[in-house]
């Protein structure tokens, strides 16, 4: 660890013109420079935005299980930057109840906290660190407040936190030891009872829960989190399109330029482009989309084109094959563009007329909806959960019945008949809060639980 940095980062340091700066350590289960999942991207964006405010000393602790970040005999390294740490996680982690079995971890964490002396320890996810980390921090550094941003229904549902039944992919409304054991027959109801008790025991130490959507918050309150410790606050949106940074302006201040609307004049033959962005996994509803496309083709609808930007290479082979077969059948009105670099997402979105989110699980607070609205594109989405909350029908976009390809086909046929439905939405689209405002809301939340003003 850098000795010099621990000197320059003395606790309560008064910076000219700033008063006492908040000291925030953001922890995430992976590291945004190692993997590109939602939680680590959100954590990285938060750190960047906090730093850009000029009022926060922000540190990042991510995890890695990749051999390329291993250093012999070390568990904590700084491969990327001075205020940026990586915990090399051993494979002994118990993913069932998020229990860390690394006997060295508590000391690693406490030594780092001693060095950084944060006012706020903000977790994006608790897996890999283990839920016990909350108790370890509270017992040893009671002055540090613990914030946890919830991602998916991870504590509630063993099926990757999706609250979808394992075999049937049916939506699940509530956990129970018996219901969970039906999804995982090799585990009994008592295992799920203990899992919940274990996780709940340690979530008790969290001072503030942040949920990116009301829907997610309600599910967690129903599960047992205290209402008075939970706020709804969106994640800091991901880094905007990479472009040469003009002089001193930070990434967080870069804005997307206003996008001119697209008008369909009578007789114009340009197809209506409907874009799907993201991982092509079964729960993202790709099958619903392809079936709807087939229905459009059967109805000789030729002015709607589905543009798919995404990757299915990390999906189970069987599913990949099903996707490839389905793509082959509907090739006329579906274009598959393959994986894209996330820094290009804004440019790609501005080239479509609407963004489609056909997920067959609840979704949390999909980043893709935030991105679509930022680019002034209406969203066509399933009518449930985090999607329905983020998209007001008739104002931000259109809904169809979740999992129902006929319902989606009907919406698309309606759009085909009257493309102006999409352009007319532009006047009412919600404007996502800019990065600075979301960062400021986080800083206010930190103050509300005791961080320096």
């Amino acid at each position, binding site marked *: 660890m850098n000795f010099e940095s621990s000197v320059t980062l003395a606790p309560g340091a008064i910076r000219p013109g700033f008063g006492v700066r908040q000291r925030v350590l953001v922890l995430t289960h992976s590291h945004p420079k190692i993997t590109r999942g939602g939680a680590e991207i959100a954590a990285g964006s938060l750190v960047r935005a906090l730093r850009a405010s000029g009022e926060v000393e922000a540190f990042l602790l991510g995890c890695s299980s990749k051999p390329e970040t291993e250093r012999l005999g070390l568990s904590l390294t700084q491969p990327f930057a001075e205020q940026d740490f990586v915990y090399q996680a051993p494979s*002994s982690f*118990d993913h069932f109840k998020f*229990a*860390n*079995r*690394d*006997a*060295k*971890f*508590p*000391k690693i964490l406490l030594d780092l906290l001693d060095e950084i002396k944060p006012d706020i320890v903000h977790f994006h996810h608790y897996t890999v660190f*283990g839920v*016990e980390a909350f*108790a*370890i921090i509270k*017992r040893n550094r009671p002055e540090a407040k613990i914030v946890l941003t919830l991602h998916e229904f991870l504590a509630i549902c063993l099926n990757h936190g999706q609250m979808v039944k394992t075999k049937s992919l049916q939506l699940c409304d509530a956990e129970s*030891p*018996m219901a969970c054991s039906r999804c995982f027959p090799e585990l*009994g*109801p*008592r295992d799920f*009872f*203990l899992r919940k*008790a*274990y996780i709940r*025991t*340690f979530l*008790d130490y969290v001072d503030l829960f942040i949920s990116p959507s009301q829907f997610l918050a309600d599910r967690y309150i129903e599960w047992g989190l205290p209402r008075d410790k939970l706020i709804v606050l969106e994640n800091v949106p991901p880094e905007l399109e990479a472009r040469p940074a003009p002089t001193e302006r930070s990434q967080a201040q870069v804005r997307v330029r206003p996008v001119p609307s697209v008008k369909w004049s009578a007789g114009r033959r340009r197809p209506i482009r409907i874009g799907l962005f993201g991982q092509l996994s079964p729960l993202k509803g790709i099958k619903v989309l392809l079936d709807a496309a087939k229905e459009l083709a059967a109805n000789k609808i030729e002015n709607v084109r589905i543009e798919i930007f995404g990757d299915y290479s990390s999906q189970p082979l069987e599913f990949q094959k099903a996707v490839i077969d389905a793509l082959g059948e509907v090739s006329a009105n579906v274009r598959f563009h393959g994986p894209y670099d996330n820094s290009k997402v804004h440019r790609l979105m501005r080239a479509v007329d609407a963004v489609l989110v056909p997920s067959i699980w609840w979704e949390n607070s999909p980043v893709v909806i935030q991105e679509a609205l930022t680019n002034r594109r209406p969203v066509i989405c399933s009518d449930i959960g985090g999607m329905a909350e983020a998209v007001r029908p008739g104002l931000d976009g259109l809904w169809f019945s979740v999992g129902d390809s006929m319902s989606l086909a009907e919406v698309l046929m309606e759009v085909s008949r009257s493309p102006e439905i999409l352009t007319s939405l532009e006047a009412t689209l919600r404007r996502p809060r800019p990065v600075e405002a979301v960062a400021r809301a986080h800083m206010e939340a930190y103050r509300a639980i005791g961080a320096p003003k």
Partner: protein
Amino acid sequence: MGFIAYVPEIHHPGESIYAEIEMRDGRIGFRPLQPAFFSGLPAIKELLGRFTLRSDELKEGFDNVFGPAVETMNAFRLLSRPDEDVLNFGAPIRSPRATIVVPLYGRVDFLEYQLAFFSQSLASDHEIIYVLDDPERRLEVDALAAACLAKFERPFTVIALAHNVGYAPANNVGLKHARGDHICFLNSDVFPGDPDWLELLIATEKSDESVGIVGALLNYEDGTLQHRGCAFERLPEFADWVFAIHPDKGRRVTLPESHGAALAVTGACMVMTRELALQLGGFDEGYVIGDFEDADLCLRAGELGLSCLVDYRAQLYHLERQSQGQSQPWRMNLTLYNAWRFQQRWRDHEF
């Protein structure tokens, strides 16, 4: 098909043994017998896995054949005591008020759950002793225990046994090492519901000199009752033998916010003074693996004029295993052996 016979004292070193079988019509046959190649629990399991008795055969079968045979094999197995490795995780607690003794077998991960919950609510002057009765899990438990100490910062002791001995002997090893004024025998699949459970049990034990053993209110994970004290009942399907039963098990019942008398309490969670436990000599190790020894202990306390109580306020969860394992014939016959032994011991007791 075949024969099972109990023939005591046939061991003549250097001589081979054979069975001489005389039929009713006078024919006689000889059959050489192999010397025993199993001993201890494997031999007991092997024997108990080989027969099924009707209710009307139980008494004769166990009185003449299986009872004395298992009793002898069990006594022989207990002659060799396992080495005990005492592993202190964290500094031992100075003059503990109570010692919790937990035998650990199979699901060793329950240790992590229990310690997590204890680290939240259990007073720091109680001692926790795990008796690992599953030598093959030693490495796994060492690593898990080290991680638990690091993250929960709650000292505890693991006593690792060099070979598997079963429920009563494992608890008795824990008792031997215990230093608390009170002892709490606890199963590894029992988890606190009320955070004050142990304080309540100790206070109730102290409340009246005529109280010997205090049990807890145990629930299943769905909130239905598992234990509110034991009763005794003769079961006609098992030769009218007396069994300890759990009234209202699996039901939803409302109990007073106090305590109630019981004829016996389950060993899954019971509290008494260490002095009493030692005076009783711990659990009777003649019961094999784990059945009836808790009821037996309560009845022996009763012989000293001490009664059992259940504190309904001390609520815990008992996540008793599902019954798949019970359907194996040896397991059923083992229960019947322990039941037989209980009938012998309490032949003259009025139930």
